[in-house]
């Protein structure tokens, strides 16, 4: 069983849903970033999405754009992110880590090198926002050996036949984008998103995690009722931005995490 499977099984047995936490590696710097990640996991993040910054994040709203810019300024690279994955793996042997980025940094790193390095560092999956199924074979086709699941996305615009195809080729879990917009867009339409999740759940036995525009524990509770996991991203980055000088930044993020985690307990 993979770490992802074990995690969702454990949560199901405890009648909980997964809290998936997205954080940009290296924001505001490598050391603080590791403290923040530790605090997130200590306070209830079940699956970590580790964002590796790209200079031109076209799927992201202003909050993650600024977070990416800070991380690039602090010299975060895929090479350093790999070391970070290694450190997280050592400290937290059971927490799945999904590496999140855009395709260009991975392409520049080398598709085979990326696979080799991140599998050995202990990554559990990869999410590449701008790599739809139409193009993903050029990456996964070169990955032979231990599985490194490519976490796929479905969107509110994805029609049924396409959704079915994506569900069929997916591994690990499926990321349901809750709204047409960039990350951090305000205002979750819980009813509409729940309908989307139900549509996808009919097509797959894999866990479904919902993200984009989820920022409050109440949003988390709404989505946790229907989905297997809830993704929080921009809300954490906003906290970093607003408390960047605070010596207790990691503690603040930890308390925020605990608030979300409580909302995932059914």
């Amino acid at each position, binding site marked *: 069983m993979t770490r992802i499977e074990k995690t969702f099984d454990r949560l199901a047995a405890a009648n909980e849903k997964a809290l998936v936490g997205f954080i940009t590696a290296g924001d505001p710097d490598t050391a603080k970033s590791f403290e923040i990640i530790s605090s997130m996991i200590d306070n209830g993040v079940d699956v970590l999405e580790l964002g590796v910054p*790209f*200079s*031109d*994040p*076209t*799927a*992201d*709203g*202003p909050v993650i*754009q600024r977070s990416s810019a800070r991380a*690039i300024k602090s010299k975060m*690279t*895929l*090479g350093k992110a790999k070391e970070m994955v290694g450190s997280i793996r050592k400290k937290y042997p059971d927490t799945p880590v999904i590496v999140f980025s*855009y*395709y*260009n*940094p*991975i*392409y*520049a*790193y080398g598709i085979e090198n990326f696979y080799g390095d991140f599998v050995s560092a202990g990554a559990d999956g990869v999410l590449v*926002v*701008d*790599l*739809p199924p*139409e*193009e993903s074979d050029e990456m996964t086709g070169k990955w032979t050996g231990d599985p490194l699941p490519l976490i*796929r*996305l*479905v*969107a*509110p*615009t*994805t*029609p049924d036949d*396409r959704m079915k195809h*994506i569900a069929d080729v997916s591994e690990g879990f499926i990321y349901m*984008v809750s709204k*047409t*917009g*960039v990350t951090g*867009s305000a205002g979750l339409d819980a009813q509409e998103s729940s309908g989307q999740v139900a549509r996808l759940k009919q097509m797959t036995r894999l866990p479904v995690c919902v993200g984009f525009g989820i920022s409050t524990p109440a949003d988390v509770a709404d989505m946790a009722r229907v989905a297997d996991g809830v993704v929080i991203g921009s809300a954490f980055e906003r906290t970093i931005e607003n408390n960047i000088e605070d010596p207790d930044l990691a503690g603040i993020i930890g308390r925020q995490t605990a608030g979300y985690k409580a909302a995932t307990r059914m």
Partner: protein
Amino acid sequence: MTQEQYRQYPDEKGHFGPYGGRYVAETLMPALLELEAAFNRFVPDSEFQAELRVMLHTYAGRPTPLYCARRLSDKLGGAAIYLKREDLLHTGAHKINNTLGQALLAKKMGKTKIIAETGAGQHGVATATAAAYFGMECKVFMGVEDIRRQAPNVKRMELLGATVEPVASGTGTLKDAMNEAMRYWVSAIRDTFYVIGSVAGPHPYPTMVRVFQKIIGEEARAQVMETCGRLPDLLIACVGGGSNAMGLFYPFLNDDVAIMGVEAAGKGVETGKHAATLTAGTTGVLHGSKSYLLQDECGQIREAHSISAGLDYPGVGPEHALLKDLGRITYMSVKDDEALKAFETLCRVEGIIPALESSHAVYCAMTEAKKRSTEDIIMVNLSGRGDKDLGIVAGVDEIKAK
């Protein structure tokens, strides 16, 4: 490879050999598939073609003349230089060929809102014009640096009823405007048509924009056959994203004609302050397609630099990347000060004020003409007029005077 193969691209997934494709977020994929289906259904249709032909003729001003720049050629003492006068089109650049085509397609698809990115403002103005023509709502994303240096075009877009959205992120230039247009499109995907201004972006844009721009080369080919009785020896066009260049080059790809694409060398390729993507870039993925890019070793996009906003872009259309690799087109670059020299020369010698983008191509033609015999014919795409650049040129004069 036999010559006919230069025009067999892209494949059914939008790949030009290893380049092109659709590297976009899932939310956009269904919209791109819908666009591709509509493009294949409507554009080849004779009714669509007839409607577009009338607009291009009676509204945009096609055909544009092929002008023999005799005084310029005589002054240089070499090959004869012919200018394809896209600068004479309505709105002042080749961009209108594409925006009328895409807006007509948007109308057929039942879309009522259009958006665009713009660098020099020419594509923005051409999109705003098409929107006014069709009575559509229009929003144009433009970097704050470009708003500053191409102010007259901002005013024009506003007069035409478009909303100009300033983009302050990144370097405040074309790349950032395109980022922001893509972000906005994701949120407005259901009723909004994105009019991309060059042969860049995800499939089907590189093909669609080339299809709408190839009228430049089709006309020029017929015109040169009529006036000179033969094909030219050399074609030259500037390359930002590459649309005016593909437009001129495409109908000649299978002919025995040399072709040169001219990129912006800015302050010099060796200084790092340039936009010579094909000359100095490496393969990567930006704005939905794979092509050459200016980037660092970690895949972060580098700042481009050019005096001309329309060439100030760290990417280039995927078909150019392929044609470079196949050796069919030679790409070279021209510096800011060289483009300014060509700008001044064309103003004085021919009474034509060219866009700074097009001035790059003119400079290349001037150096190539000198190397060639008086029997040779060089055809240059004069992609736009320079009215929008008077502020920049005046600024350079002021600095020189100090």
